[in-house]
């Protein structure tokens, strides 16, 4: 009956919910067990878990009762975070434990998930005091490296190039740092997709018959294999840049610059102060910074030569 009513309303999201509402879905990402009322096909499903995080639907207020700080689309307080995007919905993230979604009628499920698995998961990770670096993580099975840098610099493209060369991708866009049994830093398995623009897929001669991140533009989700083995220790973080130079280049980052660059490349850094998580973040960075090597790596803006850059970077990453 519900399904019938919803179809009359032509309400895409309600239709979707009516089809799925009675189910609960279980996933694991960033080392966290997630129980969700919303199906999240981007994540790896698991069974029989005790959940760390619950994602569900409910009423989300227009504003938080006590706001510590805000941005254009978000409000933050201690253990409370609100994200709102007109046309998609409102999200409330609390205590690093639950995310409540109030979608708007016209919202597409893929768009709801895009914000959920981006900024909202970012806020949840910060509430839990976890360190999340903005970048993709790759491994050769013996060591792990994070490729970081500002948006548009080519982190995912380089990860796609290294994947072509036979290396494995652990995470794209958000690399969450954890500890293994030997107390070594590792990167937790992320969402098993690379988000790639059409020009990159075409450049790498790859199929563009993939799911779009949003229907409005040519950015696709390319599935990547999920690592079965425990990820190897994190040994390097590379800060990428692009310039109008003609050659690839790299240099090691030393001293205080390591800390500052790591801080500046934290995923959704702007949430941290406003959530009162600055001390935990400082502590996490201080512990990590002494355990890893960091490098600057620069590529030419043009021409785009992803595989050549990937070969160049593989020498730095895995053979130095």
């Amino acid at each position: 009956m519900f399904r019938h009513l919803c179809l009359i309303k032509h309400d895409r999201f309600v239709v979707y919910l009516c089809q799925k509402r009675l189910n609960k879905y279980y996933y694991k990402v960033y080392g966290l067990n997630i129980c969700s009322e919303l199906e999240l096909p981007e994540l790896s499903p698991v069974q029989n878990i005790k959940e760390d995080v619950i994602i569900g639907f409910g009423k989300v207020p227009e504003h938080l009762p006590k706001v510590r700080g805000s941005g254009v689309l978000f409000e933050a307080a201690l253990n409370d975070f609100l994200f709102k995007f007109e046309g998609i919905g409102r999200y409330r993230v609390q205590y690093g434990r639950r995310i409540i979604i109030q979608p708007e009628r016209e919202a597409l499920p893929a768009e709801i998930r895009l914000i959920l698995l981006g900024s909202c998961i970012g806020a949840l990770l910060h509430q839990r005091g976890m360190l999340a670096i903005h970048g993709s993580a790759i491994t050769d099975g013996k060591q792990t490296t994070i490729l970081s840098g500002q948006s548009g610099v080519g982190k995912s493209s380089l990860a796609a190039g290294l994947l072509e060369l036979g290396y494995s991708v652990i995470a794209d866009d958000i690399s969450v740092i954890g500890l293994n049994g030997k107390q070594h830093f590792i990167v937790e398995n992320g969402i098993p997709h690379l988000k790639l623009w059409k020009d990159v897929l075409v450049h790498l001669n790859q199929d563009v018959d993939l799911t779009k991140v949003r229907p409005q533009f040519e950015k696709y989700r390319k599935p990547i294999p999920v690592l079965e083995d425990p990820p190897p220790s994190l040994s390097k973080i590379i800060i990428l840049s692009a310039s109008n130079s003609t050659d690839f280049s790299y240099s090691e980052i030393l001293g205080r610059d390591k800390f500052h660059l790591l801080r500046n490349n934290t995923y959704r850094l702007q949430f941290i102060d406003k959530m009162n998580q600055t001390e935990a973040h400082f502590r996490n960075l201080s512990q990590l910074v002494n355990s890893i090597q960091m490098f600057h790596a620069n590529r030419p803006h043009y021409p785009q030569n992803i595989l050549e850059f990937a070969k160049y970077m593989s020498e730095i990453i895995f053979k130095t």
Partner: protein
Amino acid sequence: MPEAKKNIVWLASYPKSGNTWFRIFLSNLFSDSPQAVNINELTETTMSSNRSIIDSYLGMHSSELTAKEIDKLRPQVFKRFSDEKEGTAYVKTHEAWTLNSIGNPIFPKEITKGVIYIIRNPLDIVISYSYHNNESIDKTISILNNDFSKLCEKKEKLNIQTQQILTSWSSHVRSWTDDSNLPVHIIRYEDMLDHPLKSFKRAVDFLNLKYEESEIINAINNSSFDTLKEMETSDGFKERGIYSEAFFRKGESNEWESELLETQINEIVKYQHKIMKRFGYLKESE
């Protein structure tokens, strides 16, 4: 949001009109050192289309938003940027002054201290811009004459800057000087070349900056074309177009007289003559 501060100066121009030159002049003026500032370390300005800044205030990747969505949100981004900024912020833009999809100016009046609008003869712009983009003169003319021209428009790739509405050259000039209803000071590129002290001093006065004439002269000398060209030759310039050999190419006016074909001149003048005449780029009789 607290009460808005009027602390943003928009350094606006059509591309290749002298905006970078003016920014370098400002950096030299603000510098404590009598030496010329390094052109690769211009810390005084940012860009209106800087994706990192937009992402930071939004709290999400602008790369996952449409251009229309970004423009709807950018006035709020600029208001927050203004609120957090101590003192005056100088923001470079090549965008036309426009309204977003909900009718709000992308460059909000309530945070605007003023606009420096740098204008250059479009006949010279096409030559400089065609070198910058490694495009033909004819293709560049079609960009200048097109009211729907945009920068960083491609939908199949990510640009480090967000999409910008450029419009045609005349519409760009009119948008800032007539439509914006902002305090605008117009500087002609040609006057910056021919009468640098008078031209830069007027801009300094408009910005209400307190500098001695000797300091302005020093900043002008430190941002002379020869100095900038020498710096670029020696260390490169990070703002050089990816397709061009040099950013600082000739630094002259009236290059069009020897470089453009008559048909090309006519094509530009046909579309741009009203504004060209208004700013002294055509004789009254033309």
